[in-house]
């Protein structure tokens, strides 16, 4: 009987081994015919090489091409130029085009949008908007000037200070118009056309800051993908977010921070130091970026009356302005836009109306001068 079972066990073992053998054979077939991906190493290397290209250099190459193809149009007087006291004949629009204006360096590659061109004749106006010149001159015609300019003295009392630049005039006009509207609380939402202009202008801009910046995206003025923020963050905390900003290699970064900094930084100097550090970090990680910083707005009167620490905000703002100028960061004064009725209940953040004006102001500041 033992023998019998031994034979049985042997036979059954053979069958099992046979089954396993068959299975192994099929697995081999599987491994050889089906499994395994085979990227070609030479090809992978080529792709990796493409990926490893230096991004700032590439962007420079791409953007350079755009800048050189853009035609620079400056206001050029059509008729014989009337010399304005204080400026020699050389300072006409023509030589400004060649970048030879005395005392002004036109550096398009650095700030292609912010050209400070001295106005030669205040009667000349080739901008679309009717320019209400605030200096002591007569109102100017709004059509493009093709007839010879007026030969009567352009300025009645000869100004002792240099005439305002086009940029300054436009800023003053803008402020006047919008100050009125803010006082009357007549600030319309952005029209479709304005929205489109803003979108195309700020395509390569990142807005960076704390909850004051967050509102820009929340209120729908710009796509959230262009807003990098951290609520209630100090400037130091924001530095950690810089890689996020750098990852997109923007051309411009607009910084807008608020009152939490008065809390974190006990003195305006500490705040200014932190700002300097952040600017350096930004410039290091995004070479060639243009930086702008908006004012640190004060708290509402109501809030300010109870918070001694926050009511010092104007001191911080003044030092921010000063530091920004030293660092070559464009300081955007937004204090004039503030109205008590446009504060949110917390007395710190601003409502939609504020941002409507703020955005329009930004757009005006950054649009290329005509």
């Amino acid at each position: 009987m033992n023998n019998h079972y031994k034979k049985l066990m042997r036979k059954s073992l053979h069958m099992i081994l046979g089954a396993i053998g068959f299975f192994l054979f099929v697995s081999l077939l599987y491994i050889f015919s089906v499994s395994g991906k085979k990227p070609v190493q030479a090809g992978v290397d080529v792709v990796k090489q493409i990926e490893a290209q230096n991004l700032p250099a590439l962007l420079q190459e791409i953007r350079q091409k755009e800048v050189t193809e853009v035609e620079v149009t400056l206001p050029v007087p059509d008729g014989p130029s009337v010399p304005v006291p204080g400026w020699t004949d050389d300072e006409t629009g023509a030589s400004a085009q060649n970048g030879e204006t005395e005392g002004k360096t036109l550096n398009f590659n650095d700030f292609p949008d912010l050209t400070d061109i001295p106005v030669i004749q205040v009667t000349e106006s080739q901008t679309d908007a009717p320019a209400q010149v605030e200096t002591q001159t007569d109102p100017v015609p709004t059509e493009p000037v093709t007839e010879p300019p007026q030969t009567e003295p352009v300025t009645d009392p000869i100004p002792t200070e240099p005439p305002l630049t086009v940029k300054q005039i436009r800023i003053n006009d803008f402020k006047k118009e919008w100050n009125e509207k803010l006082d009357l609380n007549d600030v319309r939402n952005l029209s479709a056309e304005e929205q489109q202009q803003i979108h195309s202008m700020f395509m390569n801009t990142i807005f960076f800051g704390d909850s004051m910046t967050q509102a820009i995206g929340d209120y729908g003025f710009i796509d959230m993908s262009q807003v990098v923020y951290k609520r209630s963050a100090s400037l130091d905390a924001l530095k950690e977010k810089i890689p996020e900003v750098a990852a997109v290699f923007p051309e411009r970064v607009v910084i807008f921070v608020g009152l939490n900094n008065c809390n974190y930084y006990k003195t305006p100097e500490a705040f200014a130091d932190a700002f300097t550090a952040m600017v350096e970090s930004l410039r290091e990680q995004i070479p060639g970026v243009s930086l702008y910083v908006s004012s640190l707005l004060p708290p509402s009167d109501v809030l300010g009356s109870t918070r001694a620490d926050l009511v010092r905000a104007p001191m911080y703002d003044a030092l921010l302005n000063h530091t920004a100028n030293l660092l070559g960061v464009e300081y955007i004064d937004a204090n004039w836009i503030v109205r008590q009725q446009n504060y949110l209940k917390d007395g710190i953040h601003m409502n939609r109306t504020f941002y409507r004006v703020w955005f329009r102001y930004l757009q005006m500041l950054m649009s290329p001068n005509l």
Partner: protein
Amino acid sequence: MTDREARERARKLRFFRLLGIVFLMMIFLLSFLRLVWPRKSYSAQERRSLAQLPEMTTENLKNGTFSNAMEDYLADQFPARNVWVYLDELRGHIMGEKYSQGVYRSGSGYLIEEFKRKDDARAAKTTKAVIDYLREYPDIRAYFMLIPNASWILKDKLPKGAPIDSQEEWYASWEQEVRNAGLSNLTVVSPVQTFIDETKLDKQIYYRTDHHWTTYGAYVGAKTLAASMDLPFENQNWKQVQVHSRFQGTLMSKSGFYSRTADAIELYLPEPEIACVTNYKEQQKTLPGLYSSEGLAGDDPYEVFFGGNYPWLNISTNAKSNRKLLIFKDSYANAMIGFLCPFFSEIHVVDPRYYTGDIRTLTASAGITDICFLYNINTYYEDGSLSLILEGGEADE
């Protein structure tokens, strides 16, 4: 009982005893293997995650979800599952099974996806949305290119008598609809004849195991489109680089049919080189070039193009042109965009399946000079997301 009968009986007895023992041993062996076999969480072959051990709660036990989950778990974690699946496929192959999950096993090692005309209305809605959208921009040149699938161009390879609806018929009716709209700025571009000619020359337009076109197919498509766009395509040279030699695409995973052929993936790089960067708008990152080595090494090597599908890409190049292209696409266009880069300074690539922005703002603000709709017929027919993002009309405040 005679001697013979006794021997018969003994043999039968031996056989059944043997059977019994083998049976028992198999059960023990298998149970043992099941216990000790390492658990997997993801199947690269099937492109899905595998079921894990379910939690046992009274709720689960009562309503039956536990037992279902347990069954799934035991099935998914079966020892050497891939080999068994392969064995089953082998069996199917030998038995002549030619259809699985919408895919036909066809001649020359091709897997071809079927085309079923289920709901013409959805595609009609999409076409209408496109036409209405283009009407709003009469000054922008527009191009509409639908790419035929393998079920049309390679229909000779399909198994005889396969009940596939004709893409050709549907395309004819679609083209008629577009022509009836009478948009002066719209050009319908059709690569069909070129594809048929190329196929006759034995050129590979489609991948054997994937539903996409090969890069060569994309090249032919781009050539056809460039002619309508007035681009100097003939003057551009390309360098071919092979990046994959064993492409096993989506149709293989979808159907479970294993192809015994190998497809290669190639990239065509412009010569001389151009500088281009891709800005992944909603992901907030900008990367050089158009290709992703991570996508190439992943489960779906077709993702070498851009690393996959993204809602909105903005590609900037140093091309000496002021033309800016806005292209609405599915994944077919990924392979083709590289061919258009030397001719546009900016290409905005929108995938309506993921895009959440406002398309009209984009069209107006980005200074778009050309708009292109690039879809393969299968996706165009079935997808409803294009009409969704194009609806909207006037942008509201």
